[in-house]
């Protein structure tokens, strides 16, 4: 069961909870499980079948690079964070 930390502005979707528990062995499966628990969550993080460009996923302290396909461990800690490109500034140059 992975622990998923919810960004502050999305906590209204998870009834105010800062972190929730979800099952799945990939990021995509985790998000699907969260959607089952809190309908509407998926649209906040997924667009056209992929992670939104503005969102990155940190798994056990490391920014994951495989998008929805990244594997998640039995007791992983997952954070959704803004996607950033380092010296480029925000990955999303709106």
């Amino acid at each position, binding site marked *: 069961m992975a622990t998923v930390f919810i960004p*502050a502005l999305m906590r209204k979707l998870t009834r105010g909870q800062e972190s929730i528990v979800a099952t799945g062995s990939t990021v995509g499966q985790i998000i699907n499980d969260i959607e089952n628990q809190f309908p509407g969550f998926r649209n906040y993080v997924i667009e056209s079948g992929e992670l939104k460009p503005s969102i990155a996923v940190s798994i056990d302290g*490391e920014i994951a690079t495989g998008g929805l396909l990244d594997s998640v461990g039995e007791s992983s800690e997952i954070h959704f*964070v803004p996607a950033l490109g*380092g*010296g*480029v*500034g*925000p990955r999303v140059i709106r």
Partner: protein
Amino acid sequence: MASGTTQEFNIIGTRPVRPDGVDKVTGRAKYGADYSFPGMLHGKVLRSPHAHARIKSINYEKALKLPGVKAVVVGKDLPELESKIEFIGEISLNPHYLAHNVLARDKVLYNGHAVAAVAATSLHIAEEALALIEVDYEVLPPLLDVRDAMKADAPILHPSLRNKEEPDKPTNVANHVQFKRGDLAAGFAAADYIVEREFDTSMVHQGYIEPHNAVGVYTSDGHATIYCSTQGPFDVRSMSARVLGMPVGNIKVVPAEIGGGFGGKTTIYLEPLAVALSKATGKPVKMIMTRSEVLRATGPTSGSHIKVKMGATKDGKLTAAEVWMAYEAGAFPGSPVMAGAMTILAPYVLEHLQIDGYDVVLNKPKTAAYRAPGATNAAFGSETVIDELAEKCGIDPIQFRIMNGAKEGSLQPAGPPFKRIGFIETCQAIANSEHYKSKLTGKNRGRGVAAGFWFNAGMQSTATVNIHADGSASVVTGSPDIGGSRASMSMIAAEVLGLPISEVRAVVADTDSIGHADVTGGSRVTFATGMAVFEAAHDAVRQLKERAARIWERKFEEVDFQAGKAISKNNGVPPMSVKDLAAKFPRTGGPITGRASVSARGVGAAFAVCCVDVEVDPDTAKVQVLRATIAQDAGRAIHPSYVEGQMQGGTAQGIGWALNEEYFYDNQGLMRNSGFLDYRMPTCLDLPLIEAIIVEVPNPGHPLGVRGVGEVSIVPPPAAVANAIYRATGVRMTELPMSPSRLFKATHKKGS
């Protein structure tokens, strides 16, 4: 590969002369403006004299009639792109905004906004032609202050702009980011001391000495080549293709040497215009910006308004922090406020925090990245408040930071825990430094310290390592060399191949000749491109071992590779060096090229701590920096001289940001100091020697322990200088820059 343990290296950690150096000291190196082609035309851009206006009409007939003028391009000649976020190559952005920034359509949004582009047979004729283009503007009132732009009754810059929180309301606030954990009220209730301050920082520019340039060559087969100085040739390719409506594969970008970037040369300005003019004329077109154009019409970084409130117990334990920040995005959305929110307070353990950041559009140039974008503004606020709290607690400012310092497992502001980091070690390096231990004597003098954090980037890189017929090697990547990275790329390959550094050359290739590389920026080249080079060199070694096994008629497992030689593990076959093997390539299976591409994980975060001594002239309020020391965790310094160079360069930029640099806009929104005389960057005479202390807490995520080094050194200096000025004058400055006029007002208001 064991990292984090002591590793013995032959080449890594030494200081060889960089392989591209001779061309640079003799003037032979070709930067973008040095390119010349037969029949080449010169292009110039007509720019808006107004900060905010509607374009009613553009008439360029007279310009076209001027002898020597060959073409004019305006906004309507480029495709109109839908406003939405999409992936352009490997980065995501809104192509509508990008295209409108390259060439205005119905509105101009800042003084300097490009309105038309002209190509002529000489630069001077092109300039004359600009004066003959007639633009009818309906001038609108400019929005120049970030807090005014957030007000409910503010004029709206982009009628269709909405943010996620109020999806039906027109707004100038493009984005809101928030990080929150714990219970703020409880945290502040537990504090014995609370400090609350508001800060204002000015828009500043990266200040690279080389202006933007591009040569566009469009050929009748629908292909184009762009020669330009850029940090990201692959991004230039995909962004230009999108703006021009051309297939990405039809554009080749050849990165010239680049005369500084610091994040400002990661997007496009002239490139699509040069191609469009080349298409219209059938000739190569060269375009170079003047310094005034660079300052007014490229991508400075945000000015900001920041509120910081922090609490600590009298024993010096931080209990809570509340931050509110509004950053200027410029004419289009996309300030680095998110990065500011992710880096502020990162060096500290904080159970209760809330950080709110707002991305706000206004009538100034669209901001671009500037070395640790967003972090310096934020640290100016937090690091001066921390200094005040430390003073109230009666605790040495370095010790205060160590006491509250983040370690492995501590939570970052955005939530994820840190992996192994070296913040405490970096603080200790300053605490133990000769500078910090020395006494500062004399009147009007003060010492200040501050810390900074940058997460660094991983991202994608490709590398090939070619073994030549004589056993020497070339390393090919797509990462333009801004700071000497060709040296470290050669060193990494040479270390793995066991070759002397003189036999390995690093090459920066064009977008057709190497696989994708993300931008040179984000402190990522030594980390990620270095990782690709490391793996490509190992791939070459694997093939060399296979070749030796074939030659010796042994199994692959029986061959070892050490110190540049293939060695048979079992019997007395003499070892074969890379040179020996290469000599046999043609008759044993052909040439050997190692290759690798990475989407680099295992990024190591970087911390820097800066200590400065200043003297403030009591009559003029001029600040002289007497001594400066910067300590930074580099993980592992591949070439220490170039690591020191990054540290010293960032510190110098931070000092300029602290003391003199600002965009001065009049109330019409025109920049009044768009030249190097009045946009005042530090000269040789303004700075002391800068001591750079490299701390090495190896990054366990990288085979050589590397952490990115290029950016974080710019983050602490403004706060360090402010803290030093406080000790020299008794005045806490909350505005940047702390120029003589501002400091004079503040010190004389105090009535001291």
